[in-house]
């Protein structure tokens, strides 16, 4: 019996980091319940990824391949997942809480008549079933939630789970589920894509992230953060308030509704440290806060703090780093 089915998001031709984290979580649930772990591999020309999913923890891979699945279309993908669900009969379906997971999970839950818990960060097992633990009130509280329907769905917040240690000797069972989707009309068409100019370092993978908030005061001020990022080989992030003000593009937002990062060092400059922001960076190894308010909540979770107007601090900080790193 498979038991737990996980959804795989493909990014640059491989299972995304978040998908491997979800497989890791599925494995840990299975360790306690004795279930099998299955992965749904959906897309065009993706069968070659089967071994990678096995190495990441899947006992069974349900493969649904078609050129019609090249681009993500919710209605089409929903049908494929319903079909896989019928073959696999899982009692738990896990999605990464990425754009696709957040889009698909509620609609699939509806179609299966199942309950869904979104944005889980942890789980507990009770009577052989999963209790999902999710932050609520922007992370100010944690709720333990039980799904009462026979099938339970959950989305899992990125960077909260360890991926399964890769084991390339595992050979999965492979089940092909032929997609029957040709007749499904497209809901919507993407007429244009506007990509931001390429950043040197990907925010989510960066070892150093330098973020600015409302305290920065202007988009010009972010130039200093970019300068610091360049010296340290890092990436620039922003609080939602800074994004809403138009100082940084939305794709740089760190937090519950932005990117989840866990760098070696995170600089929070002019950021108060709302729980929704902490949700996206609380897992950073070292947190450095520069804030002029000694009462700012960010100082409660930071390792290093400078209580000062950032304008007085940044130039010297940048200077000193350039000196140190030159030597």
């Amino acid at each position: 019996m498979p038991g737990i089915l996980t959804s795989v998001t493909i990014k640059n031709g491989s299972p995304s980091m978040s998908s491997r984290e979800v497989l890791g979580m599925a494995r840990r649930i299975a360790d306690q319940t004795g279930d099998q772990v299955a992965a749904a591999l959906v897309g065009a020309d993706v069968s070659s990824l089967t071994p990678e999913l096995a190495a990441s923890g899947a006992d069974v891979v349900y493969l649904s391949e078609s050129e019609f699945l090249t681009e993500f279309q919710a209605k089409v993908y929903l049908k494929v997942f319903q079909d896989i669900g019928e073959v696999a009969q899982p009692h738990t379906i896990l999605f990464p809480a990425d754009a696709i997971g957040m889009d698909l999970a509620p609609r699939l839950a509806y179609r299966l008549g199942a309950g869904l818990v979104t944005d889980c960060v942890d789980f507990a097992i009770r009577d052989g079933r999963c209790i999902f633990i999710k932050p609520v009130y922007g992370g100010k509280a944690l709720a333990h939630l039980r799904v009462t329907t026979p099938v339970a769905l959950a989305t899992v917040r990125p960077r909260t789970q360890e991926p399964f240690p890769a084991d390339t000797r595992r050979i999965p069972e492979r089940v092909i589920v032929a997609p029957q989707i040709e007749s499904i009309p497209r809901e919507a068409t993407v007429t244009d894509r506007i990509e931001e100019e390429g950043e040197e370092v990907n925010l989510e993978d960066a070892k150093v992230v330098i973020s600015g908030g409302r305290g920065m005061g202007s988009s010009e001020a972010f130039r200093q953060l970019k300068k610091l990022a360049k010296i340290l080989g890092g990436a620039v992030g922003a609080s939602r308030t800074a994004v809403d003000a138009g100082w940084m593009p939305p794709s740089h937002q760190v937090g519950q509704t932005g990117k989840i990062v866990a760098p070696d060092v995170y600089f929070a400059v002019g950021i108060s440290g709302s729980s929704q922001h902490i949700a996206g960076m609380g897992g950073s190894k070292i947190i450095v806060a520069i804030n002029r308010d000694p009462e700012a909540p960010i100082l409660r979770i930071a390792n290093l703090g400078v209580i000062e107007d950032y304008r007085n601090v940044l130039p010297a900080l940048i200077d000193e780093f350039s000196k140190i790193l030159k030597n």
Partner: protein
Amino acid sequence: MHIVVCIKQILDPEIPPRNFQVDQAAKKVIPGDAALVINPFDANAIEIALQLKDRQKYCTVTALTLGGEPCGKALRHALAMGCDEAIWLKDAFFEGLDSAATAKVIARGIQKVGQIDLVLCGRQAGDWDMGQIGSLIAEELSLTCISVVSQVDVENDRLRLQREVEKGVEIVATDMPALATITSSSANQPRYATTKGIVLASRRKIPVWSAQDLGIAENLARLVVVENLTVPNYERQIQIIDGEDGPVKGTRLAQVLAAMKVLK
């Protein structure tokens, strides 16, 4: 065109963690003296609807909420911002519903409003952060659902939506009726209510629809139940970098970080 914006009143999500408490036995948050506000993403959705109204010749915006007594305030605020109508789904029967049941009731409410072209919801509510109501309403009403949208336009009778993606934006075209879940952006910051708007809104009679009005007689099942509610502690021990002025502190911070050998 007729737009329905679904709004929810929540505890102000900006209250600092130290002012936040839960009643663990009741598995509920203690509201204390925190203000009630319209969920911020719902306010962005109202703004998008009003911007469409500003540009379209014939456009009606209806704000709709489901909830108990204090929610009237949210609806009046929506009217004061410029919404044309407000609908209040209120019934003791609707207390403590989960996402699935809430979406079911709201979908019935939207059906009762009549012919609609667009439904807008916030991408998630800042209390339980479930982020599923929009998609579930779309499923209930068999509407196309576009999520994480920051701008909406109408072009040749079709919707043209700007959707935030991982690295930039996508322009998506779709037919009406449809539903979009709204995220915040610099272009949809909620407008202030005018004094005149506030006065007019305070005089309006807001229709209240009960379970019976919506033809809901069956008990609504709970697909998800709360087992426990706790307050986590993320606090770390902080080292404050001191110095006579900002530049000294900046220099010291660089040196401390370098000494920690955490930067490669």
